[in-house]
């Protein structure tokens, strides 16, 4: 492997950019394919499928064998609201392998004692989210019900193309939320990406049950939907 190629692969991982290293087994020719180059690549379809599954593997094309080294950033789960559901979700998210962080400016809620499993930031989302550089490998759940806290997070999540955006609240609450987001300039297509009422419909009642339904919905979005959002027209 060319050293510069290795440096680019490592840089992509550090910067949370998905990338696929294509190695032709016979002869060892290699190239690094990043998201914006997938469609133009001769192995575009195979690379796209590999990026969706997140798994490295061999592919055959016209008698030649290639190995695809797939590098996707680990899933991050940003939870807005250090509430009861978040307490149930934290150990579950950890078990699934998601990198979870909780953001809540209300210092009475956002204490490490309440959340032994995950980091808690007692900050407003406007302050906490930008340094995190949320991206398409990030899921966001808004659990506070408080527009002052949830809305700024939702706006940032929509702009960052997060693969999962969920917001707690009844249909009525969500209706009002959509009105506020419309006033902020978001379109119907953007807002259709917000899952509300949040969670798979499994009849969840208790906080751990709701956390389960939310986690299931995130996994569904991760595994069933392409993480690559835009396709050039």
């Amino acid at each position, binding site marked *: *492997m*060319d*050293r510069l190629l*290795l*440096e680019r*692969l*490592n840089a992509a*991982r550090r910067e949370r950019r998905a990338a696929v290293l294509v*190695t032709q*087994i016979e*002869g*060892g020719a290699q190239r690094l394919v990043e998201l914006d180059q997938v469609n133009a690549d001769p192995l575009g379809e195979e690379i796209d499928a590999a990026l969706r599954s997140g*798994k*490295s*593997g*061999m592919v055959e094309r016209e008698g030649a064998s290639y*190995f695809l*080294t*797939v*590098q996707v950033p680990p899933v991050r789960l940003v939870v807005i609201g250090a509430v009861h559901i978040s307490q149930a979700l934290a150990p579950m998210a950890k078990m699934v392998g998601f990198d979870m962080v909780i953001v809540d400016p209300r210092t009475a809620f956002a204490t490490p004692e309440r959340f032994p499993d995950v980091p808690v930031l007692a900050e407003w989302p406007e302050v906490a989210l930008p340094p995190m550089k949320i991206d398409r490998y990030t899921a966001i759940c808004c659990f506070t019900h408080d527009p002052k806290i949830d809305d700024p997070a939702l706006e940032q999540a929509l702009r960052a193309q997060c693969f999962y955006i969920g917001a707690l609240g009844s249909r009525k609450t969500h209706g009002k939320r959509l009105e506020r987001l419309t006033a902020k300039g978001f379109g119907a297509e953007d807002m259709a990406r917000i899952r509300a009422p949040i969670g798979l419909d499994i009849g969840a009642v208790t906080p751990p049950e709701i956390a389960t339904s939310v986690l299931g919905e995130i996994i569904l979005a991760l595994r069933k939907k392409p993480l690559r959002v835009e396709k050039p027209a």
Partner: protein
Amino acid sequence: MFAGDDDILGQAEAWAKSGKGVALATVIETWGSAPRPVGSHLAIDEDGHFLGSVSGGCVEGDVVTEALDCISDGKPRVLEFGVADETAWRAGLSCGGRIRVYVERVG
């Protein structure tokens, strides 16, 4: 300490930058109950230091030897290993799997 890809590929880059000969081994195919998944890496430097794994420790010795040859001649190669039953390293693991490992020089 468990070495993730960050450490392994980062170490390979660091070795190469320090002027050392480096090879990278990658599991490219597995059959049966292979110990490490496809995509697992082992980085090797010219002195035989290594980080990561391509099996549970069964074939690393052979891979390192081949990697040192690869560092010398620069030719990528594909190695194939059957994981013998007697080298099963963990109770309950039904071995007998096979793995293919791609070894290449970094340079």
